């Protein structure tokens, strides 16, 4: 039984190693780390101190554990620690996807890896140093557990409950897990009369487990909002474009799922129960596309046409051990040679020395987290946390950035004294046109004084 882990561990190790080649560079990592640091210092229930536009507003705590884990990695190993933890999560995610596919096609490991490939490649776009990555790994584990539960493993089914409890504290995507567990249990309830109580208990326990967070029922607010009203102006929440690279990979997964559903023998209801809700979710935004590829990997693996060659002999425990050791070696080697500093090429690092302290700065949305971490004495106007700014503040930010009618009134009313923007931003172009003072400039940013 443990032999089946050899290939997933090996593939997971390879992709964990690959992920260590990339430096920390996500625009949200900085505010995530700062939030965890603030949580350790002040506990739950505190108000916002990072911005001057939402100062004192209650902070969301829907991914506190994920933030703490990344911050713990940073404390343990600075930026290399963050890379190491990210690599571990990437490796786990990839290994779980391969494991799910292999569970469905034990005798054809290559077919399983091929079926997992769209998910693995697509997960590259969410392999970021944020709790979101942990959410994807939880989802991949849930797929394994639900499919094993479907095959009769009571332990796998029950294990979904602690998984949901953990997931609900790691990232807001836990809602998908609760919904899928509920649907899977409903399918089991219909199919297996003898275990109806177990299914009912697991479904209820999964929901209750999702409430075991500092926010309680309020933890469902963020996923509900993002599902029904995805903020399209943010790249990862944009509509799925199957002509761009992540969209092409998604299209491959979707097309394979559709085509195999049509040309294969009828599938058990459990497959539909898993695939249909995930397929719908995946259609709603770029960020959701990996879910379908992950969920469909075992489905594709089981139905992928494959040459009739003698099946490979099953791997034993020694193979699993070897796979695990190779994966560990890859991870360790990758981390040892990983970039020790974050890649700040996309951030206005050169402006830090000249930034004024105190309220009054309006900076690019994408740079908010960077400033929270590197310039804590200069609170931000907006940042990647999004929700504190929904409505008025975000609207005002957009008005100013586009130099749209009323932008100067916003600056005056809000008391904005400095603009930290890209040279191509309309407000930068207009400010220069008006002859406003440039305090600091580089190829990719301008710090402009508002007269």
């Amino acid at each position, binding site marked *: 039984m443990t032999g089946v882990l050899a290939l997933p561990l090996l593939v997971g190790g390879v992709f964990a190693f690959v992920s260590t080649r990339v430096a920390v560079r996500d625009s949200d990592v900085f505010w995530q780390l700062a939030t965890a640091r603030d949580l350790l210092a002040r506990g739950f229930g505190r108000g916002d101190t990072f911005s001057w536009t939402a100062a004192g507003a209650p902070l969301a705590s829907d991914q506190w554990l994920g933030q703490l884990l990344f911050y713990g990695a940073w404390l343990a190993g600075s930026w290399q620690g963050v890379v190491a933890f990210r690599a571990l999560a990437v490796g786990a995610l990839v290994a779980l996807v391969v494991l799910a596919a292999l569970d469905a096609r034990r005798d054809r490991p290559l077919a399983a890896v091929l079926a997992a490939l769209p998910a693995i490649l697509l997960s590259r776009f969410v392999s970021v140093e944020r709790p979101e990555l942990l959410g994807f790994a939880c989802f991949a584990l849930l797929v394994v557990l639900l499919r094993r539960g479907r095959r009769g493993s009571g332990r796998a089914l029950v294990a979904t409950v602690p998984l949901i409890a953990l997931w609900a504290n790691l990232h807001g995507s836990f809602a998908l897990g609760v919904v899928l567990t509920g649907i899977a249990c409903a399918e089991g309830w219909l199919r297996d009369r003898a275990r109806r109580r177990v299914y009912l208990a697991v479904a209820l326990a999964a929901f209750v487990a999702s409430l075991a967070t500092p926010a309680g029922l309020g933890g469902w607010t963020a996923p509900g909002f993002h599902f029904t009203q995805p903020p399209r102006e943010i790249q990862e929440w944009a509509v799925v474009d199957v002509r761009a690279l992540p969209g092409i990979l998604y*299209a491959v997964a979707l097309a394979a799922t559709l085509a195999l559903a049509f040309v294969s023998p009828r599938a058990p209801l459990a497959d539909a129960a898993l695939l249909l809700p995930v397929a719908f979710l995946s259609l709603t935004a770029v960020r959701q596309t990996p879910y379908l590829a992950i969920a469909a990997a075992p489905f594709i693996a089981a139905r992928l046409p494959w040459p009739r060659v003698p099946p490979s002999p099953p791997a034993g425990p020694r193979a699993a051990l070897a796979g695990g050791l190779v994966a560990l070696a890859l991870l360790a080697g990758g981390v040892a040679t990983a970039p020790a500093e974050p890649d700040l090429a996309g951030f206005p690092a050169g402006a830090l020395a000249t930034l004024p302290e105190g309220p009054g700065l309006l900076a690019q949305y994408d740079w908010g987290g960077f400033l929270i971490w590197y310039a804590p004495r200069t609170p931000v106007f907006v940042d990647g946390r999004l929700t504190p700014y929904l409505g008025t503040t975000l609207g005002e930010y957009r008005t100013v950035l586009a130099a749209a009618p009323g932008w100067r009134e916003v600056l005056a009313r809000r008391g904005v004294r400095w603009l930290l923007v890209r040279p191509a931003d309309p407000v930068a172009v207009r400010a220069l046109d008006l002859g406003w003072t440039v305090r600091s400039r580089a190829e990719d940013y301008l710090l402009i004084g508002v007269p």
Partner: protein
Amino acid sequence: MRPVSATTAGRARGMRASTLLAAVVAALAAAFAVTLPASDPDLFWHLASGDWMLDHGRLLDHDVFSFTRAGAPYASGQWLGQLALALAFRAGGWVGIDVLRAALVGVGAFFLARAVLRVQPHPAWATPPLLAALLVTKIVWGDRPQLFTLALFPLVLDLLLAARFDGRLRRLALVPPLLVLWANLHGAFPVGLALVAVFAIEAALARARWRPFALALAAAVMASQLNPASGGALGWAAAYAATSAGFIVEERPPDILSGPGLVFAALLLAALASALALGREGIGRALGAPLLWPGLVVPFALLGLAIQRQLPLACVVLAPFVAGAVPAALGRAPACSPLVPRRLGVLAALVLAGAVVATAALAAPRTPDLSGYPAGALPALRAARGNLLNEYDWGGFLIREAPEHPVFLDGRGALLYVPGVLDEFERAVRLRPGFRAPLVERDIRLALLRPERPLVEVLRDDGWRTLASGDGFVLLERP
């Protein structure tokens, strides 16, 4: 095997009730379409193009409407569609446009309904996917040559379904002439070729009388070359699909959480659910040709996901499968379409046609809906002189209503203005670095823009005078 809805002998005696139902659907759709006012931003330049061709007695193959691309050669691939629009307008004014739209929507609805009812004769099962697909088609009811694609796509699909499932192979002879027509009416004719190709490949794989389909495909490909651009039309269509992604809303991917996107997603998921439940054998038993359906559903679903204006085509393909497969997946017995006496059918069709004509006479709008256009600026604009910077969406309107002012750009975006002129426009109105350069280089003296454009404030600060302003527009003149 799938149900046979009527025997050949039976068909000689009467008309399928499903055909009558399709006629009812078509009449309702046409009656609704005829009551909508013309308002599509591209209608006006299509009309102007058609008028130009009628006046000059030759094809319009170079730009005569803008000052930024004046004289530049281009081919829209829809000259016949533009002529049809212009002739409809000359024949009946705006009512003529309303009637042409209603006719094409009616034809499209009829053949969509026929295709759905051919697979699923039971009205209760056929109606939801049919209505869903019809609802989505409404996003392309704008008065443009694309209406011809809306009519021809279901028509060709129905012909192919009739040939594949009912053995009516002679109908395949209609495909090549339809493709000749299509290749001159609208540039989306390659989707028709793709349909024929899917049927031909499936017939070959299934070894099911594949030669007529292969012949139809070869003849259709050759027939589609009979247009002014010849083989270039195919290449042009491919290039258009590749270049027009970003700036035109209808060319972007659909938002699945919007109305049409949600309906499309529902159809797609219903198709996936049915396919999972039935499997290949079940699909073969319930609908026949189990390889045909993935051949249709997968590529057209991806096409719809790529470009939102193609969502209707995806839904037209999905609807028959969903109508046939969902009840089969739920274990419902296949239904047959009863026959109605032919005379009664003809009489009913005449009554329906009369009802549509009456609706057109009573309710077709006599004027277009110009609420989205700067109609209030026209008097001041006509009196002013100089090069005009205008909104992209208003270009066609100005071509028709203010021909004395050649436009900066208009709805012929991918045909004529990409990338140079469109970049200049975006740079100017969005205040990108160097935003004044296009104004200077193009010697812009007038600007007709939406008030919320950042450029408007800049021009006002620069002393440009307001010649006219109103709800949603401002006309400025350089001092």
